[in-house]
């Protein structure tokens, strides 16, 4: 983690596949899923491993690395999360209390990590650690899908600007602890920026926002940020004009997951939703167990559905490539394509199979670079890019 004079720079990428955070160059992430605790769903929540509890404005929210397990085990949570997925479809998620709670958890965790590195101080008062944050030197940037900027950026600012007094129970540094985190986010200390633009900024600047020669004059360059829900794209010309910037929800991983869930349901008689696919393929390794009551053999049957996911991914990518080709004149004017984001990495691999169709392209790159002595993955590239924009504006000015 970089130590500047006093400044703490925090970048939050509230992606649908997880909230990615960069604090003074150091990166971490945790699931986006956040649910309000409305009753005593789990009386002994303290004992649940990997569940964080945030108290904010008199309400309690649950999130953390094991939130998906908790949601899977609790039908009420599952139902509420399904409702949240509906809000995703029009970006109204960014105006919800759940989004604000997730964002505040991200900022609190970043400050706790900064305190652990001596960048701000903390002291133990009774059973909780209390953080002393210099709000004058606290700078925040939040990255939103490109299409959501116009409608939701002001809403995010309204939600985050102000004084916050939070209580967080979480395992951030050395086990589960209680933290009291108070800070103020000033209106002139907060930026909201487009995710796909952040991907490019990260690629073309160093750790402190200095210009580097990453684009190597390969203009026009097409930049693609593939996230879980949205996929953004634009081209940048030699004059650094941004052209045709847009983000589409039709080509994100969620769209692939929805199609995959529909096919699995068709073939196996299951009742999966798109948002269940992440858990199915991450935790269950793509194995669906059909109960003996409906299986043909009369026994429990395990069916590997990874092929369905692969096929649906390739199909959707073909549609996306068609969209890109039409939008960018079959890439005839392009010199370079950059892929960022988790879904961007998958699309990068698929695009390589089509390279022979575009011999005019000089370079096809996955956006990944070194930051804070570690490698920024394509999935982290948005958060890291936003952080670099902050560094460009704040450090050494």
């Amino acid at each position, binding site marked *: 983690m970089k130590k500047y004079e006093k400044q703490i720079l925090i970048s939050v990428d509230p992606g649908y596949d997880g909230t990615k955070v960069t604090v003074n160059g150091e990166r971490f992430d945790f699931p986006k899923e956040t649910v309000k605790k409305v009753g005593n769903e789990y009386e002994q929540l303290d004992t649940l491993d990997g569940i964080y509890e945030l108290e904010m404005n008199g309400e309690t929210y649950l999130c953390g690395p094991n939130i998906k397990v908790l949601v899977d085990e609790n039908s009420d949570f599952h139902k509420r999360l399904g409702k949240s997925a509906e809000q995703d479809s029009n970006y109204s998620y960014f105006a919800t209390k759940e989004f604000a709670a997730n964002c505040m958890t991200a900022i609190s965790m970043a400050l706790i990590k900064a305190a652990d590195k001596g960048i701000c101080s903390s002291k133990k008062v009774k059973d909780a650690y209390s953080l002393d944050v210099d709000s004058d030197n606290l700078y925040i940037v939040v990255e939103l899908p490109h299409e959501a900027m116009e409608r939701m950026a002001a809403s995010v600012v309204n939600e985050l600007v102000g004084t916050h007094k939070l209580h967080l129970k979480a395992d951030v540094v050395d086990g589960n602890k209680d933290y009291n985190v108070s800070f103020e986010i000033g*209106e*002139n200390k907060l930026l909201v*920026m487009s995710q796909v633009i952040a991907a490019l900024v990260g690629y073309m600047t160093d750790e402190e926002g200095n*210009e*580097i020669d*990453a684009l190597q004059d390969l203009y026009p360059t097409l930049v693609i940020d593939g996230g879980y829900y949205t996929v953004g794209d634009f081209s940048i010309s030699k004059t650094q004009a941004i052209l045709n910037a847009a983000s589409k929800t039709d080509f994100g991983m969620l769209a692939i997951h929805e199609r995959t869930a529909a096919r699995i349901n068709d073939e196996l008689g299951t009742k999966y939703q798109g948002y269940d696919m992440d858990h199915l393929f991450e935790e269950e390794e793509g194995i669906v167990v059909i109960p003996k009551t409906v299986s043909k053999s009369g026994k429990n049957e395990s069916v590997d559905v990874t092929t369905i996911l692969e096929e649906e991914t390739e199909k959707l990518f073909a549609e996306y490539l068609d969209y890109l080709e039409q939008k960018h004149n079959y890439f005839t004017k392009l010199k370079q394509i950059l892929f960022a984001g988790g879904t961007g990495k998958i699309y990068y691999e698929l695009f390589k199979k089509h390279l022979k169709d575009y*011999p*005019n392209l000089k370079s096809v790159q996955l956006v990944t*670079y070194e930051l804070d002595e570690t490698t920024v993955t394509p999935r982290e590239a948005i958060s890291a890019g936003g952080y670099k924009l902050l560094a460009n504006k704040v450090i050494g000015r």
Partner: protein
Amino acid sequence: MTHKLTFTTRDILLQNFFLMEDKALPISYLVELAVTNYALTGKYLSVATVTTEEPENYLTKKAVYFKKDGIASRYLDAQKKQGKAYNAVIKLILEQSLTIGRENRMLSKAEYLAHRQKINAYLLNDGEKPSLGLYDYAHNRNVEEGRPADVDVKRENPVERKSVTTKTMDISSEPKKTSQKPKKSGKADLSFADNFVFGNIE
């Protein structure tokens, strides 16, 4: 028609030029192929570029690659041993049309595309290492187009290419370690991003 010969007495990979047959295909891609082909096969020796001024004032640049164990290379070696100047020998070869034969020839667009396809497949670990020399491509093209395999294919309608870029194909998912050095002192001008940022930092 005027011919101007520029010799490349050492192999500076990014300074080689190949014949252009199609305006839609920038010469830089042919340079890339030349470099990649040379790097992968090591079978060709870049000896010269030929600039031809066409009646329409077009300029055609051609790179001359001698196959290392070909007739022209052997002739060149023999002449050098007799004390003849390198440049003079190459010029003699070209003027006497000993070169640009099937062993010492230039890439056509079709050959370039075919070779590039193989290189891409190889780079993506999805194909065999391209080991065919230029002769093989000429041979294959002749066969495909119904000519005897050993007939040299004449160029038709060469077009001008006045400048080249010297980038090599870059397909990478590796972190950009070397590119993180500042290009200029001071902060990058990121004003292009301002239209896509909400809020101000003070």
